[in-house]
C-alpha cells in the first residue's frame, strides 16, 4: 500500500460521509421544492446529526451501541475501499455488513416496531442485494476488472453497454435512500405503520452515528452508480446526481409499496433485466 492509496483512502474516510450529508441536504431541499415548499437549509442534515450527538438517552438495549459502531465502521470501510480503488464487490459486501449490523441492533431493541423494522430491513436487503451484485458483475465484465480503478478506466461510458442495469440501480438507490415506493423498513419522511421501523429504538448519539453511516452508504451507492458514465470526475458527479434526482422524483410520484410487492415483483423484474444485460455482455 503506497502513500497515494493511503491518501485516497483517507479522503474517502473523511469526504464520503460529508458528501452523503450534502446529498441528504439536497434531498431535503429538492423534495421540499417538488412539494411546493421552501424546505430547510441545505446543511440541515448536519444540524440534525449535531443535535442528536448532544442528546442524553437511555439506550433500548445494551448491545445497540456496539452494533451501531460496527455498522459505522463497516460503512466507512466500504467508502475507504472504494476510494482506494479496491474491489467493488468486496466494497459491496462490506456495506451489506453495515446493513446487517443495523438490523441486528434493531433486533436487540425492545419495541415491536424495531423488530418488525429489522425483519423488513432484511427483506429489503434480500431484494436489492442480488440486483446490485449483478449490476456490479456487469460493470466488471464490461470494464474487465473488479477493482474500482479499472472500472473507472473503462473505455467510454459503460452506460451504453449496460442500459438494462439502470432500473436495477435506481431500485437500489431508492431502497438505500429509504424513498417511496421502497421505504419499507424505515420511512424517510412521513411515517408509516412501522413508525421509524428499524430505527425506532436508536436514539441520541447512537442514532447520529447511524445517520453518518447512512450518509456513507449513500455515497457508496451513488458512486457505484456513477461508474456508468465514468469518463471524468464531472461526468461521474453528474451521473450520481442524476440517480439522486431520479430517486427524488420517483419518491414524489409514487405511493409506498409493501415488501411483498417488492420481493415478488420489483426485485425479480430488475434482476431479470440486469441478468439479461449480463448475458448480453457474454454473447457480445
Amino acid at each position, binding site marked *: 500500500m503506497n502513500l497515494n492509496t493511503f491518501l485516497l483512502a483517507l479522503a474517502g474516510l473523511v469526504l464520503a460521509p460529508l458528501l452523503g450529508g450534502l446529498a441528504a441536504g439536497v434531498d431535503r431541499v429538492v423534495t421540499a421544492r417538488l412539494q*411546493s415548499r421552501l424546505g430547510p437549509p441545505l446543511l440541515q442534515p448536519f444540524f440534525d446529526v449535531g443535535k442528536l450527538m448532544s442528546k442524553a438517552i437511555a439506550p433500548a438495549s445494551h448491545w445497540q451501541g456496539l452494533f451501531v459502531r460496527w455498522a459505522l465502521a463497516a460503512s466507512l470501510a466500504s467508502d475507504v475501499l472504494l476510494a482506494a480503488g479496491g474491489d467493488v464487490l468486496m466494497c459491496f459486501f462490506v456495506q451489506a455488513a453495515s446493513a446487517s449490523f443495523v438490523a441486528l441492533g434493531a433486533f436487540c431493541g425492545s419495541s415491536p416496531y424495531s423488530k418488525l423494522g429489522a425483519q423488513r430491513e432484511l427483506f429489503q436487503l434480500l431484494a436489492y442485494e442480488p440486483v446490485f451484485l449483478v449490476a456490479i458483475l456487469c460493470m466488471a465484465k464490461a470494464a474487465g476488472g473488479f477493482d474500482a480503478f479499472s472500472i473507472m478506466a473503462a473505455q467510454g461510458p459503460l452506460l451504453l453497454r449496460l442500459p438494462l442495469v439502470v432500473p436495477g440501480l435506481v431500485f437500489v438507490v431508492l431502497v438505500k435512500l429509504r424513498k417511496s415506493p421502497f421505504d419499507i423498513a424505515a420511512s424517510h419522511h412521513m411515517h408509516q405503520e412501522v413508525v421509524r421501523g428499524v430505527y425506532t429504538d436508536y436514539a441520541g448519539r447512537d442514532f447520529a452515528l447511524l445517520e453518518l453511516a447512512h450518509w456513507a452508504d449513500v455515497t457508496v451507492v451513488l458512486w457505484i452508480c456513477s461508474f456508468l458514465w465514468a469518463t471524468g470526475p464531472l461526468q461521474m458527479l453528474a451521473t450520481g446526481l442524476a440517480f439522486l434526482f431520479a430517486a427524488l422524483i420517483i419518491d414524489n*410520484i409514487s405511493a409506498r409499496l409493501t415488501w411483498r410487492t417488492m420481493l415478488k415483483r420489483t426485485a425479480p423484474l430488475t434482476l431479470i433485466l440486469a441478468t439479461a444485460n449480463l448475458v448480453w455482455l457474454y454473447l457480445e
Partner: protein
Amino acid sequence: MRMLPTVLANLFAKAATRNYPHFVRESFEHARGELVNDIKGCIFCGTCARKCPSQCLTVARGAAGDKTEGAWTLEFFACVGCGVCVDACPTRCLSQKATHRPVAVERAVITLTGRLPERPARKDNAAGKAADKTEA
C-alpha cells in the same frame, strides 16, 4: 407516474410557502383573534361572563374592597374566541383583534380594573383606569 406534471410544475413554480415570521400576511378583516376589552367603556354588567360558553370570564363589582372599582378577569387560556361575549356586550367595549393572541410561557390570567359607572350608568363618563395585571 401521473403525479409527474404536478411535481415538476411545483419545482419550477414559486413555493406556496409564506415565509412566516419573516413575512406576515395581513389578517382577514373579521378574523376572530385576540379578545380585548376597552375597559374604559366597560360597565361591569357581567353579561359577557354569563353568556360565555367557556365560562372563562369573571366580572366582579366592588373588587378590592373599593365599592367604586370593578374587575373584569379573562382566563385567556380557556377562551375559545367564539365572540359570543363580543356580540352580547351592551357597551360594545369588547372586541376581537384580527390577529391571534401571542403565545405565553407561563400560565396567566388577565385582570382589568376600572371605575364603576355612577348610577344611573352613563357610558361617556365612565372614566376607566386600565391596568394589565397578570398573575401566575
